């Protein structure tokens, strides 16, 4: 008994010691990342002349809040921000606002949480809303906007400037139902493009394939690849509790290509049921690829069990085991580090099916909403409507700036630049439908119904009925 307890004590000691050692060894470098003291603002005297009226009516007096901020008017103030991105994205975000913080002396305190969707409601209800929140799902913002707790940006931001800097459809997507009437609930800061098919460029060219321009060409190429001995597509929809979401993107993309944008909007609003022929047709088109075991790497069965992030990996085997992966531009963060954009891999636009619907593009993005109205928060919001606010992030890759003043030269890869162009030139721009639908459908039955259909536990009709049932709850 004595012996064992002595041994345990020594074990404990060793554990504690080793841990402290490790901690102290790496503890030193961390403080470096803390906020640096704000850079000296350009002469305060000059600015203080017009600060009284400027701060009070926040716009007309001495220029816009952003101009005032740039003069150092709000030096030393803090703006809290809450959003869903963490880790690498957080580093990129902080880099992109660094210069603004140094120039204005406004400290933007960003807090990222993986549980953003769950937490933001509690914070808003508990009266602890951040000054600015970043919503990846406009549907979520819409439900909060209805409670009247989101500040209407219509009179806060210069509408003329916004119109000049954004595609009208972005502004429309930021307009939501408030407590009394329509309000401008948020502005778009980051976007990503979804209608992309990734392929291993080098081997693709070596194999003598050509990028398809129409859906039929794409299907012919798929068949050709199957004959050559590979499954063309790699598809994975496993994503923990969110399993099924990549399937919804496919349906949305095909919907845009097989029916009118008006029908798409109706569908997203719940006016066009899932059981309608339009939606059913879209899923059937998708099934031509998904349910053909020769077209999908690992066969149809593996779709449900493959994690969406692991799905593209067969493309990077040598020789590739599969060739196409339809996914938004964020997927590159799952690609192997050794693979180089524009050289080893590239993307092509998911081709149109019916010519009359042009070249629609499915996008997603982050909308920033304001919860506390203070002059410095206004300034930061205005800053976020400029391309400058996202410049370094654009340069480091992975996002597309929705603003028009974001220059195409900023993109560091040809691939990103083409994406930005694609968005700017799109005949129809539509937001990811499942993110716009209410949670019970868009993040509930839609995911589940598609998973059931693909895994074979439900027939198409039954699955669509099941998805539609989500609207009633």
């Amino acid at each position, binding site marked *: 008994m004595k012996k064992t307890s002595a041994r*345990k004590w020594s074990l404990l000691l060793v554990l504690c010691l080793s841990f402290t050692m490790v901690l102290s060894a790496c503890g030193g470098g961390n403080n470096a990342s803390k906020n640096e003291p704000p850079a000296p603002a350009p002469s305060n005297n000059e600015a203080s002349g017009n600060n009284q009226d400027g701060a009070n009516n926040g716009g007309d007096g001495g220029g816009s809040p952003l101009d005032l901020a740039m003069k150092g008017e709000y030096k030393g103030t803090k703006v809290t921000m809450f959003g869903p991105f*963490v880790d690498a*994205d957080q580093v*990129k975000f902080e880099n992109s606002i660094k210069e603004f913080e140094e120039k204005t002396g406004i400290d933007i305190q960003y807090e990222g949480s993986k549980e953003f969707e769950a937490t933001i409601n509690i914070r808003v209800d*508990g*009266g602890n809303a951040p000054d600015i929140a970043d919503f990846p799902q406009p549907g979520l913002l819409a439900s909060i906007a209805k409670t009247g707790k989101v500040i209407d940006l219509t009179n806060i931001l210069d509408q003329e400037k916004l119109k000049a800097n954004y595609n009208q459809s972005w502004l429309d997507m930021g307009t939501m139902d408030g407590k009394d009437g329509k309000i401008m609930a948020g502005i778009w800061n980051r976007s990503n493009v979804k209608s992309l098919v990734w392929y291993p460029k080098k081997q693709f060219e070596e194999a003598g394939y050509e990028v398809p321009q129409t859906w039929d060409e794409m299907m012919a190429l798929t068949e050709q690849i199957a004959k050559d001995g590979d499954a063309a597509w790699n598809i994975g929809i496993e994503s923990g509790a969110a399993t099924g979401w990549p399937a919804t993107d496919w349906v949305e993309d095909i919907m845009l290509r097989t029916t009118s944008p008006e029908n798409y909007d109706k569908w997203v609003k719940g006016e066009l049921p899932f059981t309608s022929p339009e939606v059913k047709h879209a899923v059937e088109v998708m099934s031509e690829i998904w349910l053909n075991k020769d077209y999908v790497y690992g066969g149809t069965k593996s779709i449900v069990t493959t994690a969406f*992030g692991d799905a593209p990996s067969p493309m990077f085997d040598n020789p590739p085991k599969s060739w196409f992966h339809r996914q938004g531009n964020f997927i590159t963060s799952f690609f192997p580090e050794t693979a180089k954009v524009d050289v080893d891999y590239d993307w092509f636009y998911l081709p149109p099916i019916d010519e009359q619907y042009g070249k629609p593009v499915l996008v997603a993005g982050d909308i920033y909403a304001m919860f506390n109205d203070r002059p410095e928060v206004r300034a930061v919001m205005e800053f976020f409507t400029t391309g400058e606010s996202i410049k370094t992030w654009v340069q*480091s890759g992975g996002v597309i700036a929705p603003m028009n003043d974001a220059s195409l030269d900023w993109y560091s890869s040809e691939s990103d630049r083409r994406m930005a162009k694609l968005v700017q030139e799109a005949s129809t721009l539509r937001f990811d439908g499942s993110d716009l639908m209410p949670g019970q459908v868009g993040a509930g039955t839609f995911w589940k119904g598609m998973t059931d259909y693909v895994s074979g536990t439900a027939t198409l009709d039954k699955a669509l009925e099941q998805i539609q049932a989500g609207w009633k709850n």
Partner: protein
Amino acid sequence: MVGRKKRKGSKTLVNIILGFICLLWLIPTLGLFISSFRPAADILQTGWWNVFPHQDWKKSGESVQLPKETDLRQPIEVGGKTFTDDQLKSGVTVDGDRLMWENRRARTLSVMEKGWEFKPALTLDNYKNVLSGKEYKLKNADGSETVQKGSGLSQAFWNTLTIAVPATVIPVLIASFAAYAFAWLRFPGRKTLFVVIIAMLVIPLQVALIPVLKDYTALGLNGSYLGIWLAHTAFGLPLVIYFMYNFISQLPKDLFESAFIDGASHFTIFSRLILPLSVPALASIGIFQFLWVWNDYLVSLIFIGNQPDVQVMSMKIADLVGSRGNDWHLLTSAAFISMLMPLAIFFLLQKYFVRGLMGGSVKG
């Protein structure tokens, strides 16, 4: 004689069963532990048991070249035998060797033979990334790359400790005062009050989040250590009081009576008699409360948030996997690092633990 033998036999059986259950419980932990030393690509592809020596199919170097124009949708002939494409995809055994596609496109089959795999690929990268922070590669405008180092777990570790220690000591201290009062002081409303406190055990803490958050906002306690100490104290108190009450009310009455006769005040009795006598109970409920606070995610998420200077370990670890879960393999090592502290506490206090566990078992 016979009876004793029988007892011995049944004891062995019980031990075997217990050992088996122990093993069953330990296997997932063991798997996680081994995984934490494996490279990310390996974790994705094979199970953790592959680190042990095992037989595996290896390429023998031979391959079979089929005619280029072989139609894959028809039965495929290889050396006089026909196989289907599916068979060749998953591998088909012929005379102890296995045939499998090497390059389906080029129509080559590789012949594989069984061999032993001894040397597992192990790495410390997962621990390095978690402890000293990940490295982020950022592209600059001119196409060059800069590497920026993220923060490691150390700050979060101290934050968690700063939260967990007071959030354990405060409720245990308050609860032992309360338990003494409920057990040995006679005052009106004692029973009602006690029942009310016990009734709070059934209230899930989630329903209190928004009201408490509103109060905290009004008081300015959000995101402060004081706020979260109070929150943990309040959420933990009912159980701790109940536990301590059961223990303290079981202490022999005679002790206190004699102390009273000798002129001891309630406070003397409490500090000189009750506290030393209830060390086992204090230790075991202390472990419970500490573990709860250490592993807590929800309460910290709501009341203290995710700013780096107050962020707790559980939240930092959740962030490690990245916005889209691309680095989930880091969870393996992070889980083990976050386990160290509770393990240390457990071993430190474990001799009280079993004794104290019975504190709640005999109702007073």
